[in-house]
Structure formats: structure tokens, C-alpha cells
């Protein structure tokens, strides 16, 4: 095995003891100077905030039959803004998809939200009375438009 250049064996170190002492004191001075110079560096900075964390999922035991299974997929239920229409929005949207679809969108104008609701009805077959339709569009525009969206 060839020795890497950084590696120093005991013998070499022993033969340079007087020089070593000199370097040691020099190093101490440099270290003191460095401490002053790098006072901007920080250590041990922790905070009470957290970014959320993820639990590890159970991996179901495999069986030797023809079934290939992952169990069920997790849902991450979203926090929609409180307000008139929240229940209707959650109820109607959740028929086909998670209300997280609302939060995933960029802020949309009232016209864009109205077009989305129309698409869900005309194209995708959602049935909703006109009175509910107006409340749903109003809720989305009131909380999820460029002027109103907070989170």
C-alpha cells in the first residue's frame, strides 16, 4: 500500500521535534487571530420552528401469490380557508378529486375559477344547482384569486 502524502508516521514526527514546537506556538497565534477574524461564523444555531416531518410507511409483507399490492395511498387533507361555501367546495370537488387541487393552483381570477367550475359541470359531468354554483365560484374567488389568496 502506498502512503498518501498527508499521512505522517510517528518516526518522521519524532525527528522534527524542535521544529514541531515552533510550529505549535505559531499555530496557537494563528488560531487566536483566526478566532477574532471569524467571529462572524456561527455554531449551534437551532430554532423552534420546524418544516414538518414524514413518518416512514410500513412496507406490507409480500406473499407468494399473484397479488401485487401496496395497500392504500395516503391522503394529505388540505386546510382550506374558512368562509361561506367551504363545505360546498369540499363536498363537490371531493367527489372526483381531493380539494388539494384547489390549493395546488396558482391564484386564479374570478373568470378563471368560473371557467374551472363550468368545466367540471359540462365536461366532467358534475351536477350542481345554480345557487350552489354561484356560492362555489364566489368562495374560490374570495379566497384563491391574485388579490385575495393568503396561503
Amino acid at each position, binding site marked *: 500500500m502506498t502512503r498518501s502524502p498527508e499521512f505522517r508516521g510517528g518516526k518522521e514526527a519524532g525527528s522534527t521535534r524542535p521544529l514541531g514546537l515552533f510550529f505549535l506556538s505559531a499555530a496557537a497565534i494563528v488560531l487566536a487571530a483566526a478566532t477574532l477574524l471569524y467571529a462572524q461564523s456561527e455554531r449551534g444555531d437551532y430554532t423552534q*420552528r420546524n418544516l414538518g416531518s414524514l413518518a*416512514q410507511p410500513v412496507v406490507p409483507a409480500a406473499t407468494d401469490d399473484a397479488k401485487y399490492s401496496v395497500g392504500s395511498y395516503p391522503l394529505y387533507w388540505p386546510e382550506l380557508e374558512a368562509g361561506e361555501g367551504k363545505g360546498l367546495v369540499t363536498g363537490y370537488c371531493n367527489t372526483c378529486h381531493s380539494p388539494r387541487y384547489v390549493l395546488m393552483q396558482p391564484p386564479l381570477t374570478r373568470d378563471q375559477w368560473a371557467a374551472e367550475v363550468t368545466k367540471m359541470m359540462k365536461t366532467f359531468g358534475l351536477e350542481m344547482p345554480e345557487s350552489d354554483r354561484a356560492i362555489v365560484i364566489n368562495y374560490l374567488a374570495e379566497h384563491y384569486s391574485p388579490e385575495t389568496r393568503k*396561503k
Partner: protein
Amino acid sequence: MSGISRRKLLETLSAGAGAMALGCFAEAAGAQQMHASDRLPPFTGPGANPRWTSVGLVATYPQKYPLILLTDRPVQLETPQHYFLSLFTPNGAFYVRWHLDEIPTTVDLAEWRLEVTGNVEKPLKFSFSELLSRFPSSSVAAVNQCSGNSRSRLQPRVPGGQWGNGAMGNAMWSGVRLTELLRAAGVKPGSLQVQFQGMDRGKGPVGHGSNAFLKSLDLSNPVIEECLLAYEMNGEPLPLLNGFPVRLVVPGYFATYWVKALTNIRVLDKTDENFWMKSAYRIPDTPRGMTTPEDVKAGTVKMIPIGRMPVRSFFAAPEADGKVPLGMSVTLRGIAFSGYGRVTRVDISDDDGKTWAPAQLGPEYGAYSFRTWEFSWKPQRRGPYTLAVRAADETGNVQSDEPVWNPGGYLWNRIERQQIMAGAAQ
């Protein structure tokens, strides 16, 4: 003691840790300086998303590494930037996009069959083991990219999955050639298209796009010869979320055609008019699929089904907003691909696209794979740099710096930029 440390100390001393966790987003948004311990704001817009990926939660799903959550039912997950350091995207990191919520969680291969029906001489049905044993296995390295990849870049923003750049992946796919099964069944004269359907279903009424997802390709399209019914992805079975047991592979084409958990192949004697062909996944019949909101409103835009993927290139490392000490060389790395032929050139700029120098290309895995590139870069001054990357393919397509806009949010392939800071080294 610096101001920051004092603030931190006070925070740590104040006991209401729970309340602080709740208030942290509001505080972060208003603060001058964001910290790595602050959460990202949960949405972007109405401006363009400036980040490489979308801003959603990181979430855990079966057979998957933690990925960025767009939606949970149906499932849409985005692949983080660093996975594009490798030529092949690991199965566990491969992005996920389903249209309907009833997606398979258990597949019983004792029941599962792949049927070839419609305008054929002899309708056929194959079990998984028959696919493995009766036909030769073919392989292709191919990029699977969502039609809406990078949709969050569009201005004005459009509704839909707000992907950053991570709705793509590259895999070595192995399986049976589509033409083998079509030949076995015997396509009758007068056939026009072949339609594909998988196990996924939705809660919507029958006959609507919210009930079934169906995609079709023209039988006259040369890509039919290259299509695979893939039962293997990077040498393993496909994850259920990526289409186990078999998914269609359409090399060079956007992923909307790559039907997952495939069960039905139907030969059609007329053009498929279902929602997912007639209304969805359509692009303006213009160069780069460009149009304007005004023209769409005026109804003057002719729309056609989306097809091949335009040439694109990406930074994988260093990740966005990194910092490099002056005097040090760093290796910029990334990938490039095109649905129109081999990537022949990747150029790098460190002055926001004014001047360019060629990157070194990695090994070639055929025309449809990612091609890796790298570039040794040494900043010459302190301060921010805007790096840019652009690719060209063998058919003469070069990435443009013009943004793309169309109502579906498809085909984005503008030159990518990445901010990097050169810091002092002493």
C-alpha cells in the same frame, strides 16, 4: 452578539414553541431574510414560479422516495432536482401523474389480462406470463415527460398541475413490441387508430373524461413501430404508481400517451373522439405551440393533439441558488433530450445567455434517452451569476429564449437559467 443571534436567543427562551410553529409562515413571508428553517410559501403566482420544482409538501408514497406532492387523489408527485444527476431516473424517484382517482393499489396477475380487440381478425387476450414467454423482449432508453412539465413557468399562469421541471424521468424500458401483438391479432384493412386504456377509473359519469382515460395513436404514425408494452423499468417491475404491470412506452412522445396499468388495446376504424383526445391535451397548430389569451378568446386558434417533445436541457447541479467560493472550479451537470432526434450539442452561458461555450456530452443511449452533460466552470469575480443552458438536436432544433404560452400549459422549452453566487474566499 449580532442582531440575528440575539433574536434567536429570545425565540429559544420564549416558551410558546407550538404557537411559534403555527405563526412561522406569516413571520417568514414578512421577514427580510429567509432561513432554511422557514417553510416555503405554499403557492406561487400570479407571477411565474421561480423555483426549479413546485412548492408543495414533500410526501411519502408506497414504493417511492419522498417526492414533492402536487395532489393526493388522484396522485401527482414531482421529482426533485438532484435525481437528474443520473442518466436513468430511479424508479423510486420517478414522477407520478394519474388523471382519475380509482388507480390500482393491488394488481392480481391471476386476473389481469391485456386484451387486443376492435377492428382485428382475431381478438386476443394475454396473461402477464404469456407476455413474458411468448414474445421476444425489446428495450429502449426513453424519456417520459408530462405534457404539462414546467407549467408553472407560464405567464399568464394557467390552471392545471403546477409542475416545476420535475415531471420527467428517463428509464430503460423493456417489454413486448406493440406491433407483435397487433400482428398476432391481425389489423383489418380500413383501420385508422389504436386506442389504449388502463385499469384507472374515475367517479364521473360513463362517457365523460372523468370516468375513463383513453388515448389513441394513428396506425400510420411511424412511432407505432417503436412502441413497447413495458413490463420492466430500469431492470425491475414497474412501481404501481408508474403503471405496474405493463405500461405503454411511446418513445419521443409526451407521457399522456404512455397509458399505465394497461389492459385494453383497441383497433379503431374511425378517429377517437373521446374527451382525452378531442378536447384535452391539444396544442395550437403553430410554431412551438405558441398563442395568446386574446387569440384563444377570439376562437381563431386551430388546435391539434399534442405529440413529440421539443428539445430541452436542464441543470441538475449545483442546485439552484448555490454559493461557490471564488477561485474554486465547480462542475455544472445536467441532462438534455429531444423528441425529434439525438441531442448533438449543449451550450452553457455564465452571463445570462449573452455568450455560450459547449458543454461536454456524456454517453449516448439512443435518440430518446436523456443525454448527460457537464461543464467545468470557475467564477471570475464575486457576485451573482445567471447561468443558462441550451441544447440542440440532430434535426436542427435549438432551444429558444422566447417564453411559450398556450391555454393547456404545454410544450414549455425555454432556455433554463440558474442563479449561483460566487462568494469571497477570504
